């Protein structure tokens, strides 16, 4: 299982939880698993073409997946994945 950190604005999909578990050999597979467990979550993270939305950052063990293999980045059990909106919101 991969440990997934959920930002506050997305916790309405995870019954309020900021930390959930999911499975997948790649980030893409994991996002699909998250969608099975928490319907509606994927559409917030990815657009209609399946690409990660521009303002969303995904980190695997602290590394931005843009510097790995984007959605094809590999995951193994025990890894930590964070979904972080690129901005703070507010002023």
């Amino acid at each position, binding site marked *: 299982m991969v440990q997934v950190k959920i930002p506050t604005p997305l916790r309405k999909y995870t019954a309020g939880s900021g930390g959930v578990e999911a499975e997948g050999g790649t980030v893409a597979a994991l996002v699909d698993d998250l969608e099975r467990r928490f319907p509606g979550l994927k559409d917030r993270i990815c657009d209609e073409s399946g690409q990660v939305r*521009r303002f969303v950052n995904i980190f695997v063990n602290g590394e931005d997946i843009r510097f790995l293999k984007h959605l094809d980045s590999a995951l193994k059990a025990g890894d930590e994945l964070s979904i972080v909106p690129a901005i703070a919101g507010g002023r």
Partner: protein
Amino acid sequence: MPSALQLVGNTPLVELRTIRDGVAPGVRLLGKLEGFNPGGSVKDRPALRMIEDGLASGRLTPGKTILDSTSGNTGIALAMVGAALGYPVELVMPSNVSAERKQVIAAYGAKVVFSDPLEGSDGAIRLCRKILADNPEKYFKPDQYNNPANPLAHYETTGPEIWRQTEGAVTHFVAAIGTSGTIMGTGRYLKEQNPAVQVIAAEPDDAFHGLEGLKHMATSIVPGIYHEEELDQKIGIATDEAYTMVYRLGREEGLLLGQSSGAVLVAALQVARELDEGTIVLLFPDFGDRYLSTNLWRGWPQREA
């Protein structure tokens, strides 16, 4: 008053001549370029007013430090005003604000405390409250979310400028909401001059968004200065659409603006398409330079539809 602060306000209006899809010829779209403020954003106005108010009321005295929670533009404005007036400034913000913001604030000499990016600006608000509670005598907190001097700054400056610059012809005012100070104060002034003026707010269409500085009111700590009943309309804007408008503004109008401006333009076009005539004033909060390192521009030519 020091000369840097005398430059706050009195920003220009520009007419948008190209981005007018589906808009009737009798409708004018006028953008107010708040990036021309000395600190680079509309927030110079309330920052200056709140600090002047603090000094006048005696809540800010020599030896105190100015403290607030901010995602960036207010922080920059407070840092600038504090530097110009000789007061130390301490700011709480989420650690995922843009690099430019962090650097500019440090250049003005202010100290930053970072809050958890996963908690967003509400996390910064909470941490700031804690810092203040732990050491109340040390600080003056302008409290931009609750301080009436925030909308008052716009009632006294932004609103009158728009009225004068449009020679009273303004029919609609569109602004994005963060603290809501801009739209509350400006809207109040404009409606006093002409009750028929429509005041329209642009906000993110979801709690999970990429519009730095803006608040999705339904899911956020609601600012004390926000009075939704004073708005004629509130439009939810998708982040992707706002970003696309930023790119168009650069290429089609020659204006390099921030993403809030993109959101305001999306909202204003929606309003404009319903009209046969009108003079719509759009509040463009800042220029695009301070977002160049952010996701807004990351990989954008390759991903443009």
